[in-house]
């Protein structure tokens, strides 16, 4: 095992007033990811991403496991967002197995999915804070995140990894104390969101650091194929929950935010508003939920039809889609995950080139790029 002598690792290359700097993988502003930037003065003139530090080959491993066994492993690919990476997989598997899941299970999946969205957004917000040098903006969301982790713990039984939305429904029914606890949490957190907006997002220095930084115009956002908050911040009101409603999102009353400023600030605000909307959806789900079974009958070695399925949902970071090809056996023939992080990565060099060095962490994390998810 050796490290190649790429640009930016060994040499103190100072030519043409340019300096090549390697950011990551051990860097407070990069996480499990590396990119090399070339700077001229204070301006970035080139940026080359180098992912793959967390590539664990989950797609290959699914070929050796049956449909149920793959779930815990796929879940680890996106630990902040576990239900939303499992749900499209389960939906594809159900399509191939030809089973319909009971409505209560769909509601429970929605509750868990929205809870995960809040967890992921709070984690995002915390790291955005630390990337801007704002340590309180790291601690407060991290603390409030624990409340939603508790909610997930009541429903799913674990702190982070629930394996909740399995093919055929969900793993267990809602415990009795969940509803009261959830309403209490929502009431508290809605007040906290107002605080966040007032204290963190209306801070003049925060506005100076984010407004007009990393502008991705609407047309480019569409042609680059970015998803999620990055797309919505670029003035596209697109959300799989509305575009191609799955579960019962058609019956829910919620808004999809979009901003026409197309900058980092808009991406921050989209995250903030989405958390509020998620709580709104969860409240409606808790009210409307019918009683009934939560799982369809399913054998662990369930056979599938020969064919393929392409399902997509709106995960916390954007559209997450699974392409499963089946040869009729108990194991999938090929599983391809199209993760939102990988789709947003393409915008990173585009946004970094021409911006200041100091804006690099803000832009990088505003795309909500989670390397573990992108590398699979």
């Amino acid at each position: 095992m050796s490290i190649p002598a790429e640009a930016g690792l060994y040499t103190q290359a100072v030519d043409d007033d340019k300096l090549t700097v390697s950011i990551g993988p051990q860097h407070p502003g990069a996480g499990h990811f590396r990119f090399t930037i070339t700077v001229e003065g204070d301006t970035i003139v080139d940026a080359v991403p180098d992912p793959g530090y967390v590539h664990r080959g989950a797609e290959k491993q699914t070929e050796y496991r049956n449909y149920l066994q793959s779930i815990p492993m796929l879940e680890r690919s996106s630990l902040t967002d576990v239900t939303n990476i499992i749900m499209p997989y389960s939906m594809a598997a159900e399509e191939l197995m030809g089973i319909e899941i009971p409505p209560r299970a769909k509601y429970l999946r929605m509750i868990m999915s929205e809870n995960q969205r809040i967890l992921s957004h709070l984690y995002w917000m915390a790291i955005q804070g630390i990337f801007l040098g704002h340590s309180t903006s790291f601690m407060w969301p991290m603390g409030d995140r624990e409340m939603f982790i508790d909610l997930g713990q009541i429903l799913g039984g674990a702190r982070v990894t629930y394996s909740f939305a399995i093919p055929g429904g969900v793993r267990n029914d809602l415990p009795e104390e969940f509803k009261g606890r959830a309403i209490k949490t929502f009431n508290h957190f809605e007040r906290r969101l107002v605080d966040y907006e007032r204290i963190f997002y209306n801070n003049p220095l925060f506005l100076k650091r984010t407004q007009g930084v990393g502008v991705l115009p609407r047309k480019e956002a569409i042609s680059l194929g970015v998803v999620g908050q990055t797309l919505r911040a670029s003035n596209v009101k697109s959300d799989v929950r509305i575009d191609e409603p799955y579960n019962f999102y058609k019956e829910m009353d919620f808004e999809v935010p979009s901003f026409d400023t197309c900058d980092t600030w808009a991406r921050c605000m989209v995250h903030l508003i989405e958390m509020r909307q998620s709580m709104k959806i969860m409240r409606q789900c808790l009210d409307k939920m019918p009683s009934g079974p939560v799982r369809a009958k399913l054998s662990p070695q369930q056979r599938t039809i020969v064919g393929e399925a392409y399902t997509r949902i709106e995960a916390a970071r954007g559209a997450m889609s699974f392409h499963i090809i089946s040869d009729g056996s108990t194991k999938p023939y090929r599983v391809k995950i199209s993760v939102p992080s990988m789709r947003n990565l393409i915008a990173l060099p585009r946004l970094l080139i021409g911006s200041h060095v100091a804006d690099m962490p803000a832009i990088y994390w505003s795309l909500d790029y989670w390397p573990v998810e992108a590398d699979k």
Partner: protein
Amino acid sequence: MAAITNFEDFAKRILKIVFWLLIILPMVILPLFYIFYVLPIEISCNFNVLNCSQKIDWSLALYMFDPTKMNPLDPTSYISQLGLGATSPLFKVSTFPGLTFAALLSSMVIWYERKLLAKMQYRVGPLYAGRIEGILQSFADLFKLLFKEIVIPAKADALFFISVPFALMAASGALLAVIPISPTNYIALSPYSLLIAIAILGFFPIITVLAGWASSNKFSFIGGIRALYQMISYEIPLIISVLSVVILAGGSLDLMGIVNAQSKIWFIIPALLAAIVFYLTAMAEVERIPFDIPEADSELVAGWLTEYTSMVFGVINLAIYIKLYALSSLFTLLFLGGWQGPAPIPALAWFLIKTLIVMTIFIIPRGFNPRVRLDQLIGLGWLWLIGLSFANVFIAVILRASGLL
């Protein structure tokens, strides 16, 4: 410890011993020496212990720091003959208004800062080091750093690399020398002490650029250049903001004189704009968040401090905190009337209370502000702060000319 095999090891060993001496001597041995050897003699020389009751009055210990209560002509006071008494330059420089006092205060301020920040963030902060609320946290950090390996990168310029902590410590210490902390406790008196302090502040950008260059690390280099930009563009508003204070004080460049000129009114009221400018520029000088651009850890790993290890890093950090202390005491002297205050509290206590409040104000923005960008910072400095400080100069001139002050 491994056997010495080459010169590098030997040099590291020697350096370690020097650090030990530098830290242990002023911080442990000298205070112990003064408390257990000099202090009893001083007390027995100046007061007739036999006439008092047999109980030891510990409040007498305070008089050790008050030279007016001592009789230098007393033949029994051989301590002062030896040049080791509380009035001697050695004591002043090394222990009381000087390095040890500032270092102890700074290390307590590090703990205070971490605790305060933790409270702002719904946390506990340091808790277990030192049993009582983690009060010894910075000493734990200190001892850990003392016993750590010193790494000098292979491509670094070793001489300059290792000279940076010494230079920083010397510059910070020199800053302390001209700052009086009460009418009787000072290291050096000079009619130009304010000028000297500002001149010493001009050394710091050179040292940081040296650190960045000598480390031979790209992050250090960018950090050093950023520090240079930041400090140079903030030195000018700093000097102009001080100018209005000097005008208000009747042209006195002596910090003692400036404090005495504030007996009627503290200068923060007529020179409010200058105080704001001084506050912002001082914050940029000591690289506090939101102006910690040279060591921005999410962009440049640790800025110009990236390659510094163990006690070298510890000394640099200590020097930065001593600089923070020096600048807060300058703020107190220039704008808050120094040690002046109502009688029952002694002058020294007034000064320390005010300085701690100023330090808290320096620390608190860290809790609720993100970092600013370099171009925004420089724009703020050149466009707004210089204008504001000039405006205050005019206000001061008008006040002075009209005879109001």
